[in-house]
C-alpha cells in the first residue's frame, strides 16, 4: 500500500509506503500520533486516504467499503457486542456471510479452542476479564479465515504479566494459522517479541522497515536508534578524515571507523552492551575513552544497568553482565568502547522523543 492522509492542514500520513509478505507478522511501531493507527485504519477501510492506494492479494481495495474487505480486526477496547454471548459474538461474522448453523458451530468451536476459551461460549462479555474478552475478540476476528488480520494495540489495556502471556499466545496463533498479521504498538519490546519485520513510524512517515535485529544493530535514522532499545548519543564538534569520524566532547576525542554517507551533522550512537566501565586510570588499549560519573546504578537480576553522567552533561546508558565489577553512585569511571561499535547517524530534529 501507499497512502497520504491529511486532516485539514495536519498531515497524518505523508506518502507512507508498505509492502507486507503473505504470512508475515508485521508490526507498525511508533509513539502516539506517529501515524501507525491511521495506517491500520486505512488498511481496514475505516479511514479513506487523501491520496494513494491499497492492494491485498493482488486485489485493489480503493473505494471498497470496510465491510466488504474481509479483513479481521482486533481493537484495543475489544468491541465485543454486549447483548450477545461469546458464542454469538464469534459466530457473528459467519452469520453475516450466510454460513449454515452446523458449519457455524464447528468453526466457532475451532476458533474458541484456538484462543483457549472453549468453555466460555455461553458467557456474556460483561462477565469476562479483559484478557478473556480480548481472546474472544481475537476468535471473532479469525473465525471467518480472513487473509489478513489487523490488531490495533490489543494488549494496551492489560497488565504486564497478562500482556506477556498473550503476546506468546498471539505468536503461537500466528504460527498455527499462517495468516498475515499486521500489529500496531508503541511498545518496542512487544514488537521485538512478536514480529517478523517492524516498520518504525515517526510523525506520519516510516523511518525504517526491518527485522528486530536490523533495527537494533543497524538503525537507519537517529529516531529509530533512540526508539528501539536503549542508546547513548554522543554529540560534539565533528571532524572527518578519510574513513574516520572524530567527535570532540568536552576536551576528549572519540573516533568511529566510518563516515556519514550524505550531509548532516554526525552523531554517535552506542548500544548499552557495547559500553564498558573501568576505574579511572585503567588502560583503554586503543579503544575510545570518556570520563564520567555514575549517576544511577540499577540492579536487574540478570546484570546491572548504569546511567553515567559525562563531562558535557549528557547521559550514557551502560549494561554490564553479572560478573562485571560493580560501581556505586558518585564513583568516577571511564567509559570505554571500540570505534567499530559506534553507529554513525545524521542528527535530526525529528528524533526528539516527546514523552507523552
Amino acid at each position, binding site marked *: 500500500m501507499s497512502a497520504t492522509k491529511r486532516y485539514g492542514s495536519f498531515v497524518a500520513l505523508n506518502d507512507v509506503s508498505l509492502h507486507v509478505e503473505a504470512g508475515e507478522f508485521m508490526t507498525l511501531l511508533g509513539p502516539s500520533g506517529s501515524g501507525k493507527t491511521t495506517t491500520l485504519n486505512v488498511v*481496514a*477501510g*475505516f479511514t479513506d486516504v487523501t491520496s494513494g492506494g491499497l492492494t491485498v492479494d493482488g486485489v485493489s481495495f480503493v473505494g471498497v*467499503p*470496510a*465491510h*466488504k474487505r*474481509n*479483513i*479481521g*480486526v482486533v*481493537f484495543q*477496547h475489544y*468491541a*465485543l*457486542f*454486549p*447483548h450477545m454471548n461469546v458464542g454469538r459474538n464469534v459466530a*457473528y*461474522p459467519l452469520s*453475516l*456471510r450466510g454460513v449454515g448453523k452446523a458449519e457455524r458451530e464447528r468453526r466457532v468451536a475451532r476458533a474458541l479452542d484456538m484462543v483457549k476459551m472453549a468453555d466460555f461460549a455461553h458467557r456474556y462479555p460483561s462477565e469476562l476479564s479483559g484478557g478473556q474478552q480480548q481472546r474472544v475478540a481475537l476468535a*471473532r*476476528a479469525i473465525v*471467518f479465515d480472513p487473509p489478513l488480520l489487523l490488531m490495533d494495540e490489543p494488549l494496551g489495556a492489560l497488565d504486564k504479566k497478562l500482556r506477556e502471556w498473550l503476546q506468546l499466545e498471539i505468536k503461537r496463533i500466528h504460527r498455527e494459522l499462517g495468516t498475515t498479521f499486521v500489529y500496531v504498538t508503541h511498545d518496542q519490546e512487544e514488537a521485538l517479541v512478536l514480529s517478523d519485520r517492524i516498520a518504525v513510524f515517526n510523525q506520519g512517515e516510516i523511518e525504517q522497515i526491518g527485522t528486530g535485529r536490523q533495527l537494533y544493530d543497524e538503525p537507519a535514522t537517529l529516531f529509530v536508534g533512540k526508539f528501539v532499545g536503549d542508546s547513548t548519543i554522543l554529540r560534539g564538534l565533528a571532524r572527518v578524515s578519510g574513513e574516520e569520524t572524530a567527535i570532540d566532547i568536552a576536551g576528549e576525542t572519540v573516533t568511529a571507523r566510518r563516515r556519514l554517507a550524505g550531509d548532516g551533522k554526525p552523531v554517535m550512537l552506542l548500544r548499552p552492551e557495547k559500553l564498558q566501565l573501568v576505574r579511572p586510570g585503567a588502560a583503554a588499549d586503543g579503544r575510545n575513552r570518556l570520563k564520567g560519573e555514575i549517576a544511577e546504578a540499577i540492579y536487574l537480576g540478570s546484570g546491572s544497568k548504569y546511567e553515567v553522567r559525562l563531562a558535557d552533561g549528557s547521559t550514557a546508558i551502560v549494561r554490564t553482565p553479572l560478573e562485571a565489577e560493580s560501581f556505586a553512585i558518585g564513583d568516577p569511571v571511564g567509559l570505554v568502547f571500540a570505534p567499530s561499535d559506534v553507529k554513525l547517524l545524521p542528527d535530526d530534529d525529528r528524533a526528539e522523543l516527546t514523552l507523552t
Partner: protein
Amino acid sequence: MHPLTRAILGLACVLVAIWLVAPTLVVVPMSFNENKSLAFPPVGFSWQWYENFFSNPDWSASFGNSMKVASLVAIAATVLGTLAAFGLGRMQNAAVGGLLRALLITPMVVPGVVLAIGIYAVYLNTHLVGTLTGFVLAHTVLAVPFVIIAVSASLEVFDKRLETAAASCGADRLTAFRTVTLPIILPGILSGLLFAFVTSFDEIIVALFITSPYLKTLPVQIYASITRDADPTVAAVGTILFLATSLIIAVGLLAGSRRRRG
C-alpha cells in the same frame, strides 16, 4: 443508624407515601357508591358505575378512541423520534444540532394552551377538527420530544465503536444498525414508546379544542362528565386506569428483575 432515628425516618416515609398515593386511592371506594354522587366516604356498594362504563356508548367509545389514538401516536412518534434522535446524535455541526434539538423539544416546553390555539386555528382551515388524523397528528407533535429525549439518552451511552467492529465483521450500515445498535438502544426506544402512549392517552388541553361530538377522547369525556353532573362512572374509570397502569409497572419490574437475576 440509631433505632429511634430509623423509626422516625420510617414513619416519615410512610406518611409521605400515603400523602402521595391517597388522592389516587380515594377514587377506588368512590367508584362503588350506590348513589349518583361523588361523596366521600361512599354510601352503600354497587358495581353499576363499572357496568355503565362498559355499556354506555359515551364512555366506551371515548375509551376506544383514546386507545386508538394513543396506539397510533405511540408508533408514529417513536419512529419519527428515533430517527430524529439518530440524526441529531450524528450531526457534524454541533451548533446546528443543538439548535435543531431545541426546536424539536419546543412542543414539550411551550404552554399547552398556546399549542392548542395554534393547532385549532390551523385545523379549522384544513377541516381536521374532530378527525382521527387531526388527533394523531397533534398528539404526535406533543409526544415526539419525549421520544427524542429517551432515545438520545440511550444513544449517548452507546459505544459507536461497536458499529466499526460490526463493519469489520462484514456488516453494512443497515445490518449493523439492525443487529448491533438497535438491540442495545431498545430499552430507550421502548421507554420512548411508553412515554408517547401515555402522553397521548392523557392529553386534555389540545383535545378539548379539537374534539367534536363524534370523536371524543377519554379525558374529554371525563371532563365533560365532571363539569355536567357528579357521575361516579368517572371514579370507576379512574380505578380501572389506576389498576391497569399498576399492573403494567408491576409486570415490567418483575420481568426486569428476573432478567437481572438470570
